[in-house]
């Protein structure tokens, strides 16, 4: 099953709506609760990153009996130093993002911790692509 969502940068009211839809779908498919939590925590952090940092983006979720594959592509400023961005506590988030409860520099480490496979590729001034794979069985 393939699901696709368009994400608008700066739209904090809707941030998490795509993750919520993926969560509902996985629940309907009867996926184990601990797997669902890992998927949606990783996806929600990545979705909030698009809203917080990019102009716009797209989330693609591929769900099969064996695994969940998530690909998030955004158009935005990109990440100049990914290694630094992966450091827990490092953040470039705006005050607005922090007021929403994010921007503490935990997002990318949280995604990595929950993913079985995590890839991130970024081109400064172009955008970022994040790929997350989580095994179901």
């Amino acid at each position: 099953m393939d699901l696709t969502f368009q994400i608008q940068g700066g739209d904090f009211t809707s941030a998490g709506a795509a993750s919520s839809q993926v969560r509902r779908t996985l629940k309907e498919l009867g996926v184990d609760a601990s797997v669902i939590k890992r998927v949606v925590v990783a996806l929600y952090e990545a979705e909030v990153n698009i809203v917080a940092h990019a102009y716009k983006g797209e989330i693609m979720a591929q769900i099969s009996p064996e695994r969940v594959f998530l690909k998030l592509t955004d158009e935005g400023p990109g990440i100049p130093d990914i290694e630094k961005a992966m450091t827990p506590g490092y953040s470039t988030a705006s005050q607005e993002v922090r007021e929403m409860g994010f921007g503490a520099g935990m997002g990318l480490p949280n995604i990595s911790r929950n993913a079985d496979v995590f890839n991130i590729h970024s081109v400064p001034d172009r955008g970022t692509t994040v790929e997350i794979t989580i095994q179901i069985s």
Partner: protein
Amino acid sequence: MTIHEIVSLVQGKVLSGKITQEEGIEYCFASDLMSDVLTVCRSDFMLLTGLSNVQSIRTAEMSDLKYVLLVRGKTPPQEMIDLAEDSGIVLIVSPYSMFKASGILYQAGLKGVF
């Protein structure tokens, strides 16, 4: 500890969802940082927060939590209450500060997750 006891101890008010006499919770995690909440692997805890916007409900939803206690007497926006209702999350508001609410609940037997 039952949810009714918790509501009573923090002089709380339930804004969304329904609670039965019997239902209860053993653990609590207090934070305004949602990414911190998302690092907690377990799901059997109540979120105590001062963050009065939809993202605290979204975070509870992704963390598979059922109870959110909003402190400092904040009036949550209607969209936050509506989202809690839609997500099956019980949203409770308390006039107490995070420190005071945490202290009262800890003293009454609610446990920290770490």
